[in-house]
């Protein structure tokens, strides 16, 4: 919360929004839906507000819109307290695209767009033609909104907002109901207009990939508080998101950090024990492989989502000889092997058999979870025997912090 990105040139222009201690409570409720937010949105930035359902995103946007009044704390809009501005003063500066589309509205696009004409903004007919032409959607002009596809209707709403020539554009989940192609089309236009006209954009987004791809900055909200604000790569990582969106296990995108790729690492895991470890390795630019994993396993899904190379086994099947050999290839090709603490049964016991080959694996780093595996051993001792062997040759870690130190020394 303290790392406000100060791109502002010597503070010459006040920020589009500056919130300090911003709080909001619904009438008749005890708890604040928004509990003391501090953030700055600089003019010309492209910011997305993300967070799980019920986090207070929409309420925050409604406050920024001026629609929900009676907030506590302060929210400045270009240097002036938002609550002191009239609806018309606000209308001259900012536009809005709601979550809902204008479903079933039997107005032509032109008739609808003409409605954006309101004091003090005047929309002329030629302007509508111009912008429709520029965006290559002139063919929509005389079509009824009710007959348009979801994507087309959304674009018309975007044009409506742009015709207001806003300095700030607020969007509430603008593409949630669109397919991928239309989401992209919408954002490409938005991004272009943002760049050309220097519009400040603040959008609530559900799709974190979209947020990461298009937005310069992300505000992550949970339980009415800001968890983190900053560039996408800083905000959208397993540490901040994992607990917010998915509880302990989640499959979200992890990206390699800056710098040269480091060595190859093979991870042996299962049941979600590997996620954080793999994510950390990816971020540190290791080339990660993983296996053997049964398809559908939560670690398997995580690897899938992050394009980690892995040896896969059919769901609920014991590891085949063939896959065991494949896994061994990966292990031999890696400079380090990491063994996580996962439950071991007859089906995946083969994952530990590489212990037999240790003698010929001279010089290879082995890192193993340091916990007592006896309660994870469902093989009647076979697994523990293998683990004894492995641990003897391995460096051990008790928790993720210790693990972090170990891999930094690799």
């Amino acid at each position, binding site marked *: 919360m303290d790392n406000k990105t100060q791109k502002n040139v010597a503070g010459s222009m006040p920020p589009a929004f500056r919130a300090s201690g911003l709080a909001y409570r619904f009438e008749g409720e005890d708890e604040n839906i928004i509990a003391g937010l501090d953030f700055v949105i600089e003019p010309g930035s492209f910011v997305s507000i993300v967070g799980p359902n019920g986090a207070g995103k929409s309420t925050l946007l409604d406050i920024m819109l001026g629609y929900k009044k009676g907030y506590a704390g302060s929210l400045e809009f270009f240097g002036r307290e938002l609550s002191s501005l009239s609806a018309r003063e606000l209308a001259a500066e900012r536009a809005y695209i709601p979550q809902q589309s204008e479903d079933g509205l039997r*107005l032509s696009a032109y008739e609808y767009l003409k409605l954006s004409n*309101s004091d003090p903004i005047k929309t002329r007919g030629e302007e509508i033609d111009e912008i429709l032409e520029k965006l290559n959607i002139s063919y929509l002009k005389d079509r009824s909104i009710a007959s348009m596809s979801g994507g087309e209707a959304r674009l018309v709403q975007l044009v409506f907002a742009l015709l207001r020539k806003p300095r700030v554009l607020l969007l509430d989940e603008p593409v949630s109901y669109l397919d991928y192609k239309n989401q992209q089309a919408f954002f490409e236009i938005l991004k272009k207009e943002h760049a050309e006209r220097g519009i400040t954009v603040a959008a609530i987004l559900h799709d974190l990939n979209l947020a990461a791809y298009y937005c310069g900055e992300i505000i992550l909200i949970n339980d009415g508080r800001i968890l983190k604000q900053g560039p996408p790569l800083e905000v959208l990582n397993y540490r901040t998101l994992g607990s917010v969106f998915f509880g302990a296990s989640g499959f979200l995108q992890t990206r390699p950090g800056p710098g040269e790729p480091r060595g190859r690492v093979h991870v042996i895991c299962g049941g979600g024990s590997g996620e954080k470890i793999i994510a950390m390795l990816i971020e540190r630019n290791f080339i990660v492989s993983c296996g053997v994993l049964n398809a559908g396993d939560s670690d398997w899904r995580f690897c899938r989502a992050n394009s980690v190379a892995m040896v896969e086994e059919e769901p609920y099947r014991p590891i085949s000889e063939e896959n065991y050999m494949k896994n061994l290839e990966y292990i031999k090709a890696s400079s380090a092997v990491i063994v996580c603490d996962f439950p071991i049964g007859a089906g995946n016991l083969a994952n530990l058999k590489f212990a037999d080959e240790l003698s010929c694996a001279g010089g290879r780093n082995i890192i193993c979870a340091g916990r007592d595996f006896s309660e994870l051993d469902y093989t009647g001792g076979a697994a523990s025997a293998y683990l004894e062997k492995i641990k003897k040759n391995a460096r051990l870690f008790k928790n993720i912090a210790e693990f972090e130190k170990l891999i930094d020394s690799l």
Partner: protein
Amino acid sequence: MTVFLLGAAGVALSFSLGQAAIPPGEIADFLMLRSLADGRYHAILKMRVLRIAAAFIAGAGLAFSGVVYQSSLKNYLADPFMLGISAGAALFSALAITMKFHSSLAISAFAFTGAILSVGAVMAISYARKFSSYNLILTGIALNSFFSSFLTVVMYLSKDMQNIFFWLMGSLDVRYADQIIYTYLFVIFAACYILKYSHILDLLRINEKTVFSIGVDQDYYKIKFLVIASLMCALIVSQTGIIGFIGLIVPHAARIMVGDSHRLLLPFSFILGGTMLIYCDLISRTAADSINFPIGIITSLVGAPFFIFLLAGRRKAGERANG
């Protein structure tokens, strides 16, 4: 265009048909203000002029205010009676009849007062809380049923149940030309006034926050439109009694035919409503010898199937249904 032709045909038919059929030549003479060959026809035609005029303006006004109600309340199931106009008018006219006011003007005055009181109450109660369509409609429903129960009590205790009943079912028997002229003046003036703001009605139909974002004070216009439409509607109801369904289905039909743009929708509904009621009146006078069916029954009998027909056609056309 078709609606205009239909309207003209309806007017012509209404002149000639009825308990006494009148030859077209005589009607033409009458309309040209020439003296008629048969003197008896003159009186009948004079009555029919008033009746047709009343039917047109009642239908037109109800349909017009129906559109205004639907768009202001953002609810296509709304009709002008939703906020208590009919219930208030019915209760007060029943009271007037029970209290032995026999002049139709007195009953109209009572009905008008009742209509305005009830719709005023609904709006005041919702305004005190939050002036949302949701609140308005719910309050309207509550008040409607409250007044209806009151009406039942009055009817139960009254010795003039028959008369009250007749009033409730609506009638286009208007006696005085003045009455119609004043109604025309008011309804047309109010309609023109609202037509001037047709773009605001378009706005009220679209997303509320979007409208907020462009700085338009929706509550102000909502109140203004509802008040004018209510006055219009109360004025009509006070003279004709309760003619249901026109205010609901004509706006719907008009939307299906010309779309949601109020610049077209409002005048179109006006004419369609008037035409529709002329035909309903024609049916009420000609369906059976020697009896005039109450007009309110005919509008429902004709309106409901017509409406279902329209909906079915729309489904077939594959349009995305809404409301």
